[in-house]
């Protein structure tokens, strides 16, 4: 085996890939959140529709889309390989175990949380990405140019209570996943020092609350504004 495949098939090497892809996916979350904040602009969706058109057509974004898919694939695949290995280590479970006395719930349930996020992601992609790329949304005229009216697709989806619920639950799972995952990724990269580790942990906690809360605010905003208050 070459040094490269030996390194990345070791337990530490695989975990390194999970960490690097995880941090890359975190950067995607930031871009996705900031872009979608335009839903709150109150301009009837004009800037959101123009932004969506840009994201769907810009060659650089389209290339990054492929990198993003690969990021998800590697993150999930490597985590699955390691989880399978880890599950096999202790074939007989302890008759009596108290892991809650020595560790966080989220850190012990990354696989469960990741699975919830994946299910959410499939629903989310089917409803928005799939319909935007392959469906035929209504056209809307913005300053003389025709755009797909994705804004209306989003807003109408968020009028359904069960859809809002799926989103909120998905974001709660994401929050717990990030709460462990963000700072854990730095640890896996070998970055642990009394100078900056407390800062990374604090920022990780902040990130794990603010990003999912920002995403969850979108369905909640349109549901409360258009359904509850109307």
């Amino acid at each position, binding site marked *: 085996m070459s*040094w490269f495949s030996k390194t990345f098939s070791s337990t*530490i090497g695989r975990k390194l890939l999970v960490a690097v892809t995880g941090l890359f996916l975190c950067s995607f979350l930031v871009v996705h959140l900031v872009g979608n904040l335009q839903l709150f602009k109150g301009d009837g969706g004009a800037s959101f529709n123009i932004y969506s058109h840009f994201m769907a057509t810009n060659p650089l974004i389209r290339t990054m889309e492929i990198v993003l898919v690969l990021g998800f694939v590697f993150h999930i695949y490597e985590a699955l390989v390691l989880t399978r290995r880890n599950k096999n280590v202790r074939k007989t479970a302890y008759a009596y*175990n108290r892991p809650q006395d020595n560790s966080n719930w989220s850190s012990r349930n990354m696989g469960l949380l990741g699975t919830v996020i994946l299910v959410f992601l499939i629903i989310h992609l089917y409803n928005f990405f799939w319909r935007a790329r392959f469906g035929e949304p209504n056209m809307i005229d913005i300053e003389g140019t025709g755009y797909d009216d994705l804004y209306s697709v989003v807003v109408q989806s968020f009028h359904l209570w069960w859809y809002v619920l799926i989103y909120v639950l998905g974001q709660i799972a994401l929050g717990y996943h990030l709460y462990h995952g963000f700072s854990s990724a730095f640890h896996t990269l070998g970055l642990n020092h009394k100078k900056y580790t407390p800062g990374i942990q604090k920022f990780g906690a902040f990130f794990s609350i603010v990003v999912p809360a920002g995403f969850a605010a979108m369905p909640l905003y349109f549901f409360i504004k258009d359904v509850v208050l109307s």
Partner: protein
Amino acid sequence: MAGNNPNSKPMNLTLKVWRQKNFQSAGKMETYQVKDISPEMSFLEMMDVLNEDLLRKGIDPVAFDHDCREGICGTCSLYINGRAHGPERGTTTCQLHMRKFSDGDTITIEPWRAGPFPILKDLIVDRSAMDRIQQAGGYISVNTGGVPDANEIPIPKDIADKAFDAATCIQCGACVAACKNGSAMLFVSAKVSQLALLPQGKVERKTRVENMVAQMDKEGFGSCTNIGSCAAECPVGISLENIAKLNREYIGAAFTSENV
């Protein structure tokens, strides 16, 4: 003489103990009663009382590992009430005292559970997988020559302290037992850090970390997910920082060692 427990009266306890005849046989939990346990007894002394009682009744005594009974050798193990080395932090099983329990308590006692630690009998597991990891690189093979003059090799105090902290690992295996994944990373990281921090150990740091990690994987230990239960249960307080150091050493070696 009273211990921490204000109630220093003798205790009666119910013990649920894992019994397994040998390596091949299937084991099961058995329930025993022990009477008149003094709060001043260590946990292992309580086990001795149980075994004397079992011998009198003609039952095979419970096999468990122990040696120094002073908390320094790392031979004792036992998963007590869902925790490696019992409910008290920073202690080995032999240094756990019965004053931490109350009269009428039920105590569940199990062996370390991990594939690379096969159960030999009752509560005794074979921990030689850790020895094989150590043999794969946890040593210095360079010829260090004669005895150097004192202070000829300057080692900063903070580095010496860190290396010493890592060197306190007694190889008991509590980290593996407590880890959800059965990972031996805390143990391996302590050994790798200790040697990589000091000038004599630095010479072989790259091949050492590669060989020890390869052996760790070969023995079938799980991977680290930075849960932290290992460091929380470690009787000598090996810090999680060592695992980050191991990752750093490993990644560095992967890209710079001479092993292609």
